[in-house]
């Protein structure tokens, strides 16, 4: 084996790694691209009560607590977009922050035990809670993003949505796995 060959092998390996990584990255990023898109579409198909917005053109605040799996992707996707005249405002919040000013709250998986608290906190408030923590919807979250057969799907807890005074369009429900679970844990599917 020549030195030259060796160099080439190394480079190739690195490239492969890089591409793999990149692929992985892109794979990972394409999932969140889609999920970001989903969130945008959720905004379109969910109706907040009139009290949720101070003004007709007040932004839809998306709060992200816990880890942010989207990164700049979500900013890019929602940049300049409006839904019903409301632009988007993405805030990354500390877990202890006041989440009541958000219309959409994305709970990162790192929150762990705090998730229940957050759910309890936001219950009855017009905040669309979205997460990708498994069982999120069963525990009272409104929308849970799942991954089934390499496809992004989502579950929607209609009772929780009703409690939150959020009107979710049937059009969305058609596409979702509907979960009926009230806060007190009764499951109806």
């Amino acid at each position, binding site marked *: 084996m020549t030195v030259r060959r060796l160099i080439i092998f190394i480079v190739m390996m690195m490239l492969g790694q890089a591409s793999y990584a990149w692929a992985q990255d892109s794979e990972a990023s394409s999932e969140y691209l889609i999920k970001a898109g989903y969130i945008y*579409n959720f905004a379109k198909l969910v109706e907040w009560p009139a009290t949720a917005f101070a003004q007709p053109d007040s932004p839809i605040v998306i709060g992200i607590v816990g880890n942010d799996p989207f990164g700049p992707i979500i900013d890019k996707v929602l940049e300049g977009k409006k*839904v019903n005249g409301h632009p988007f405002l993405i805030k990354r919040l500390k877990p202890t922050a006041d989440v009541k000013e958000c219309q959409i709250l994305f709970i990162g998986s790192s929150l762990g035990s705090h998730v229940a608290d957050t759910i309890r906190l936001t219950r009855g408030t017009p905040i669309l809670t979205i997460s990708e923590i498994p069982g999120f919807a069963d525990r009272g979250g409104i929308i849970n993003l799942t991954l089934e057969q390499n496809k992004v799907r989502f579950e929607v807890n209609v009772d929780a949505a009703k409690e939150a005074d959020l009107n979710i*369009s049937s059009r969305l429900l058609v*596409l979702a796995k509907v979960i009926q679970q009230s806060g007190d844990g009764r499951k109806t599917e």
Partner: protein
Amino acid sequence: MKLQNLSIKRKLMLITMLTSSVALLLSSASFLIYDLISFRHLLTQDLETQAQIIGYNSAAAMAFKDEPVATATLAALKAKEDIVAAVLYTPDGKIFAQYVPGDKAAPAVVPPKLYRTGYRFEGGYFDVLHDVTLNGEHVGTLLLRSDMREWSRRAKRYALIFFIFVFASGLFALLLSSKLQRMISRPILQLEDTIRIVSANKNYEIRAENTYGDEIGRLMDGFNNMLAEIQQRDTALLNANDQLHARTEELEREVAQRQQAQEELLKAKHAAEEASRAKSAFLANMSHELRTPLNAIIGYSEMLEEETRESGNTEAIQDLQKIQTAGKHLLSLINDVLDLSKIEAGKMTLHLEIFDVPPMIRQIVTTLEPAATKNSNVINVRVAEGVDSMRADITKVRQILVNLVSNACKFTDSGTISVNVEPITAEGQDWIRFEVCDTGIGITPKQRKQLFQEFAQADTSISRKYGGTGLGLAISHRFAQMMNGHIDVESEPGKGSTFTVLLPVEVKSEGQESPSSETTLEPAKPPRPGASNQDTILVIDDDATCRDLMSRSLNKLGLNVILTGSGEEGIELARRMRPFAITLDVLLPDRDGWSVLHELKTDPELSSIPVIMLTIIDNESLALSMGASNYLVKPLDRERLAVLIEKYRAGRSSKSPNRNSSNRTAEKREELAPTKA
């Protein structure tokens, strides 16, 4: 089949049918078309609405890329039978979900650029494209394709209805029109019928029945009026025809009568002609038979007288003279009787010619000198100025005058007999008056009555005393009458008598208006074959006898002769025929020969033709100065004429005057004396 020749009924029905069909077709067609168009519009709208709904319903699925849900949404279109395909395209034109019933293939990818939203008809299908949006964001395109079966069905149905309807209404219109056309056609057909009957039967009493007030009604009225008129005229015509028949019959009868009369007349005429011929023959015979022995008597006695004179036997001379006298008397009797018979038979004819009067008078006087001297009479003659020539029967004129003068001599003793001749104008005519006066025994009124009657010498004793036949005056009287003149007598018994004879200067023969009308061409012989104008000569002379003689002698020279008695016609003929020479008589009836000459010589066409003037008057210098080539005095010297003509014929014209040596009148006048009216 010509449209024009269709019957009224067919025409009317055709019109009705056509108009109603056209109206029907147009209206129903436009209605149906409108309906189909709006139906299609409806369907289009329906489909578009459909697309909208489907689009709305599938927007979320498109946004979330949920293919099953999208497909399921499309599948809902199963309910709509006319949808043959429904496709949802992603924003970049790829098929995302589709619904294609049956085994049809999905339509090809539609380029998103051209068909964002809209519709089109293509290949029998109706495509609607719908922009699928979720909250304003374009998430995909929906294509709905319909086979528009409902519309096709409707259209087919309509077509069927249409044809049935048209057919049915057509039939109905046919029925109706066939009934209604009678309104128009019946009166026309009636009229036609009437006309046919009228023409066929020639019956103009028929009238067309008219119950219509419209234009056809007026036509029928007009027709009826016409028939009435025709009827009237027909009747009138028949009447006229009847009258005509009656008249024709009348005429035919008349004609038959006349024909009969004519036949009888013809027979009578033939008989008369026979008689006349017999008479002429008799007279001719008698004339000859009677004269011949008499001539012998007179002749021999004369001869004997001469012989006896030589031998000196004076007694015998007297006896012979007596025979002579008796013979001459008998001869004059016979002549008179024959003359009178001729006159009676109507066989006495006039032989008119132009002659000089003075010479004749002189001759008569000379002849009668012995008769005058016998009774110791003296004859005085006075011929007035202006008495030149006249146109009459010289023999008869002579006879009249001889008769009168000899009568004067007979009945006058130691007296004077005057003969006066002068021209007079009376009743618009020119006459010559011969007056014979004597200082003799005169005539009593009683005698006068019988004077001019035959065989009635005033007194039988007179004939014994004075001689004469008693016929002389009668004959003279008749002769004068024949020449349109008359004899009058004035007398005083014991003093003398004056006999006046008036004769026209120009005696016109009976049966002819004037000599100038004798202008027929009388060629003595037909023109020789091949005779050209080089051989044609024109003779202008009013005396028929002259013309005849001229034509005969000229024909002998091998010439084609044209004759005329009129100066006018002569000029005309000259122009037409261009003879190589013209003989022109000075004395012409209608125009003075000199003026004719003048015209001939001043006409450029005719001036080159040589003109030979013929006349009884000698005025050569005038003739030549006026351009006559030559000048001959009548009666003609034929040889001279022939020579002249030969000269002209050969083309040489001679200007040298040719004088006629014989018959020069003693008096040469300065100007031409007028001799004609």
